[in-house]
């Protein structure tokens, strides 16, 4: 037991928590005013639903001892049964913090991941179905993949895939899941015909700031202790975000002559995503490169998505999915601290990373697609057309963003 580690991870948990409200403002500001509360509602309800399910079953499936082939955990921790509040975690990473703390720190990861998936539901969700969807998704998609990567005996971990803070589990996963949902749910009414401008840029910037500070804790805290790995992870996180945000802004400037702040915010987000799996394994110069490179990658994927007919409205696929892929691969290229990679003479690590990417993306896409289509057929993932035109704030929540 190390008290300082508890102190740090306690606070990091709180800071990762604030990412989800941050996302609510980030996403909400990007939508039309008439459905802004609805987007925030999806984020806030994710907090509530995921937390309760995590307590009952999610944590157990992800982190209790493996029940077969490294695919999923068992039921040992159902209802947190068997986790005493003063048990110290005797796990793979650390024995310095109570398992309870590890559990709640991990919970915050699960929450933000689930909230990101609100992207393809934007402005057209059947809110009741959304609650059911995320419940299934947590159990059938998130918990298994978390187990693969972080669980004791998880197959990706055993294979040697590197993922410091969740690039695979969180970002690639949620990116491809969002794409699957977008295909099932279909575009918003009037998509590409009516204007759908972002309604509140300051909210987007507020959200960016909250996500950013939370990410220090997300990546830094993944060291699970107050040590120099946490520090380097934090700095790498920051540097990649800065580089990516700046480069994105410059790309936009070259293209349209404007210093877009939505661009800077999106770029910073892409940088934060990309550096996540590498953050504790690399030196700052590599974080800088990761950040610089992720901007054109995600700018391209976002542009492609934009031109397509797929209304993956808030671009979780383009930013989290592809930022995550680049990050996973970059980890295989640049890892030097506590791990080996291409530049330390282990080019095979890149392939290991790619396997992780492909399997995660495929699993996430396919299973999410199935879940979505089943729910869509049974109760419908979408609101009615009239509700959509009136705006979900009034029709679904009985509220007006600014009256």
């Amino acid at each position, binding site marked *: 037991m190390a008290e300082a580690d508890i102190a740090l991870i306690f606070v990091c948990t709180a800071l990762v928590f604030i990412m989800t409200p941050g996302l609510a403002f980030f996403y909400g500001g*990007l939508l039309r005013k008439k459905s802004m509360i609805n987007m925030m509602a999806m984020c806030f309800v994710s907090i509530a639903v995921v937390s309760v399910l995590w307590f009952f079953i999610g944590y157990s499936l992800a982190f209790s001892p493996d029940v077969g082939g490294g695919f999923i955990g068992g039921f040992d921790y159902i209802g947190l049964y068997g986790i005493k509040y003063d048990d110290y975690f005797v796990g793979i990473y650390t024995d310095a913090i109570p398992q309870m703390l590890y559990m709640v720190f991990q919970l915050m990861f699960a929450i933000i991941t689930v909230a990101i998936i609100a992207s393809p539901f934007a402005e057209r969700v059947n809110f009741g179905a959304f609650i059911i969807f995320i419940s299934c998704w947590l159990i059938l998609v998130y918990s298994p993949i978390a187990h693969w990567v972080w669980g004791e005996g998880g197959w990706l971990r055993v294979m040697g895939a590197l993922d410091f803070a969740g690039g695979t589990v969180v970002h690639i996963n949620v990116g491809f899941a969002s794409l699957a949902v977008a295909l099932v749910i279909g575009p918003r009414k009037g998509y590409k015909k009516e*204007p759908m*401008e*972002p309604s509140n840029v300051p909210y987007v910037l507020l959200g960016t700031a909250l996500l950013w500070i939370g990410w220090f804790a997300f990546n830094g805290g993944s060291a699970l202790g107050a040590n120099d790995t946490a520090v380097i992870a934090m700095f790498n996180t920051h540097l990649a975000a800065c580089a990516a945000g700046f480069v994105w802004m410059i790309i*936009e400037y070259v*293209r*349209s002559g*404007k210093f*877009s702040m*939505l*661009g800077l915010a*999106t770029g910073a987000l892409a940088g934060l995503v990309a550096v996540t799996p590498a953050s504790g394994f690399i030196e700052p110069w590599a974080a800088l490169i990761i950040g610089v490179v992720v901007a054109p990658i995600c*700018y391209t994927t*976002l*542009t492609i998505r*934009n031109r397509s007919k797929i209304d993956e409205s808030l*671009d979780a696929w383009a930013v989290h999915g592809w930022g995550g892929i680049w990050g996973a691969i970059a980890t295989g290229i640049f890892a030097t601290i506590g791990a080996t990679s291409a530049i330390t003479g282990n080019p095979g690590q890149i392939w290991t990373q790619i396997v992780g990417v492909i399997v995660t993306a495929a699993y996430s896409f396919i299973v999410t697609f199935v879940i979505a289509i089943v729910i869509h057929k049974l109760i419908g993932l979408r609101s009615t057309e009239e509700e959509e035109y009136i705006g979900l704030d009034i029709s679904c929540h009985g509220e007006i963003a600014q009256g």
Partner: protein
Amino acid sequence: MKKLECYVRPEKLEPIKKGLFELGIKGMSISNVKGHGSQRGIKLVGRAGEYCVEWIEKLKLEIIIKDNGQLDEIINCIIENAKTGKPGDGKIFIIPVEDAIRIRTNEKGESCL
């Protein structure tokens, strides 16, 4: 009495106001509108790439004035101060007004303008 409804660029409000004051016109009301016309729309930037906003923010200026010879002078004053020469400068419409009442004093007619 006449009512002038002027759709102008928001950034021109101050010069127009100053001009009208110099003519002795003090009563007026403004509101925010969005307009559509020969101006093509402005380009804004999203997360990646531009898009065009068709509805452009304009200011609507409403002035009720006496029906005397000053009308042309006032219109010219507004035109002068609102003009940039580029599409989107806006328009002035003249609408008849039958009567006016000042709530504070119950006065009626031109005297209350």
